[in-house]
């Protein structure tokens, strides 16, 4: 046991101390943070602080333009009573410290034409939309009331329909899309981890085999200890990396408001105001997301993620270790890794099917069979999978991954000592039963 521990320690430390590990672990979240900061900075700096003069000849829009008041970014000045024609006004708006002038002629509500904006600079997209929304809302309301429709009645019927889901007598507030997104993200993480770290185990085994250090090692430790130490050590590196990413992401999210709080607030306010003006669709979406997180059983999700992460890795890494031990040259390695990467890739395809129909037969079997359960089950859990299904899947995965470690160890112990010989699947199969 002690020897296995030393092997784990070596595998872990040599990798964690590598520059590439440090770069990948710390730079990626920082880069991610920088991207956020950059977007916020660009979005807020692009926000115009403008003052617009409104010359309303129609008299319909008096005080109807809502300013975007936060940071005094958008203000309207009404030129009521000013009798000058627009042709002269459009040259002198600068005199009253305005950036442009919005001209609304006497318009026909049936065909509201001739509204113009005069300025030296173009309007930003948000500002332009804001103005257009204000105008069209007002024109719509006027047109309706001219035909004696009751605006309140119309607004009353203008409702978004939503279907509330009640599962097991519990009201589910979040949308299944959000649950799906979360499941997809977790499944994707496990998928990447299996492929990347599985390959790392394989490369490391082959390296020890080809430089013959294994011949010295097996005189002091059992091949099984050697293999297990390697799998655990490299897995721990992966866990460390994910943990660091998690912590750094949380830290950056916490630190961001401290450094650029006002800018973030401005951006949120900007989004909100434009959303209120347009439609409630995106706000609904935002509500959905926060509700979905509320709905998700976070401890269950985290513990399940950890479980499938660890045992899924054990299941696949031991296969990769066995392959690494059996082959010597790179071309062989590809032929042999193909059959074990196929189930992982199929799991990825099954994942999309699972998202569409989380309770289909395919999804059920995918989440129970050990080849795909680490990816599929974690994708399904946000959809409130029954406990018995999850426990069954966990039980099968534990049994199969331990079994896989045993089989891999039997292949490994013979494979690592065989040099310069092409092996076949048949031969590898025989090694399992060699005494």
């Amino acid at each position, binding site marked *: 046991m002690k*020897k296995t521990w030393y092997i784990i320690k070596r595998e872990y430390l040599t990798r964690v101390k590598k520059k590439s590990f440090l770069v990948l672990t710390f730079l990626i979240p920082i880069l991610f943070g920088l991207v956020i900061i950059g977007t916020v900075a660009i979005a807020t700096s692009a926000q115009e602080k403008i003052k617009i003069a409104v010359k309303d000849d129609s008299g319909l829009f008096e005080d109807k333009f809502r300013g975007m008041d936060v940071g005094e970014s958008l203000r309207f000045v009404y030129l009521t009573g000013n009798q000058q024609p627009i042709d002269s006004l459009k040259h002198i708006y600068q005199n009253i410290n305005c950036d442009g002038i919005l001209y609304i002629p006497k318009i026909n509500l049936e065909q509201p034409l001739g509204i113009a904006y005069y300025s030296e600079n173009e309007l930003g997209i948000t500002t332009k939309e804001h103005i257009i929304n204000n105008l069209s809302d007002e024109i719509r309301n006027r047109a309706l009331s001219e035909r004696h429709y009751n605006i309140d009645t119309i607004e009353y019927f203008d409702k978004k329909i939503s279907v509330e889901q009640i599962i097991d007598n519990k009201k589910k507030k979040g949308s299944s899309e959000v649950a799906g997104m979360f499941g997809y993200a977790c499944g994707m993480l496990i998928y990447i981890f299996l492929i990347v770290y599985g390959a790392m185990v394989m490369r490391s085994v082959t390296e020890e085999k080809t*430089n*013959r250090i294994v*011949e*010295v*090692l097996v*005189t002091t430790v059992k091949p099984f200890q050697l293999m297990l130490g390697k799998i655990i050590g490299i897995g721990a590196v992966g866990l460390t990396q994910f943990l660091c990413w998690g912590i750094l992401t949380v830290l950056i999210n916490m630190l961001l408001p401290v450094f650029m709080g006002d800018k973030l607030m401005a951006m949120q306010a900007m989004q909100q105001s434009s959303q209120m003006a347009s439609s409630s669709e995106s706000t609904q979406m935002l509500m959905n997301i926060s509700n979905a997180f509320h709905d998700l059983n976070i401890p269950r999700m985290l513990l399940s993620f950890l479980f499938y992460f660890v045992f899924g890795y054990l299941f696949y890494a031991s296969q990769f270790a066995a392959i690494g031990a059996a082959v010597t040259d790179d071309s062989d390695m590809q032929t042999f890794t193909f059959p074990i990467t196929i189930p992982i890739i199929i799991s990825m395809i099954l994942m999309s099917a699972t998202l569409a129909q989380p309770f289909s037969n395919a999804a059920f079997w995918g989440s129970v069979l050990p080849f795909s359960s680490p990816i599929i089950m974690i994708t399904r859990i946000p959809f409130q999978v029954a406990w018995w299904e999850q426990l069954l899947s966990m039980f099968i995965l534990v049994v199969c991954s331990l079994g896989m470690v045993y089989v891999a160890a039997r292949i490994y112990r013979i494979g690592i*000592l065989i*040099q310069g010989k092409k092996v076949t699947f048949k031969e590898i199969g*025989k090694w399992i039963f060699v005494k």
Partner: protein
Amino acid sequence: MHLLEVKNVSKSFQNKVALQDVSLAFDAHKIYGLLGPNGAGKTTLIRNITQIFFPDSGQLLFNGEKLAEKHQNLIGYMPEERGLYKKMKVEEQLYYFTQLRNFSKKEATQKIDYWLNKLDIDSWRNKTIEELSKGMQQKVQFVVTVLHDPKLLILDEPFSGLDPLNAEIIKQEIFELHQKGTTIIFSTHRMENVEEICEEIYLINEGKIILEGNVQNIKQQFKKHLIRVTINPETPINDAIRTQTEIVEEKNEVLIFKLKENQLPNDILKILLQHQIEITSMTEILPSIHEIFIQQVQEKSQ
């Protein structure tokens, strides 16, 4: 009692018999040569001793006890193909191997210091293996093998790839360990080393021991009763001598006599002296281990 005894060990792989009822013994304080052509079963035998493989039948005894895991720390093995972690520093690497052999930190540091100083590689302790020259790497490999003071040291082609200077250094270390009582097994097919270093040999071919014993005894056993005599060319041999002896080779002043039955080297000397031949030197020609090896392997495979 033998240090290591291999008793009737057989081992076969899927379609090949690697060892067939092999019995041999290694005693303390001796240097053994384990000879044999490629594929003879040398590595399989060694892997049984180092407990990488376990025999299909037969048993191995270490100090009279059944060979077990606890004996691993008493055996040091240097494989022919050397391997070290290329990206690891010399000291870290040595420390890792002492850990795997369950040494305390203090003991490990002492031993590492001792060997690094002894082989003059102390200044390299913080370099990674890939920064070292090949000779340096092999010295480190040697240290890995002997770091735990093994009672039995198994060296597979220890001098291959070493320059003469480093080979000499390693050779001296091996002799010193031998002086201190370590039993050494050389696995090799380089015969010049065998005659120089080994006291006893086992010749293995096709999974069987075909020849064993003391190097000098074996040479005696396979000698062809040839005597090399150098004479003064001013006193040439005459026909009388030729009739009394059998000369197999004659080159200027060097003559090679083959002893007839019941003839002793002294008899040749007497005949030559009777005819007033001036002799400058006389030696018995013993076959080299190389010759015996080739002859034996060829004979057995025919």
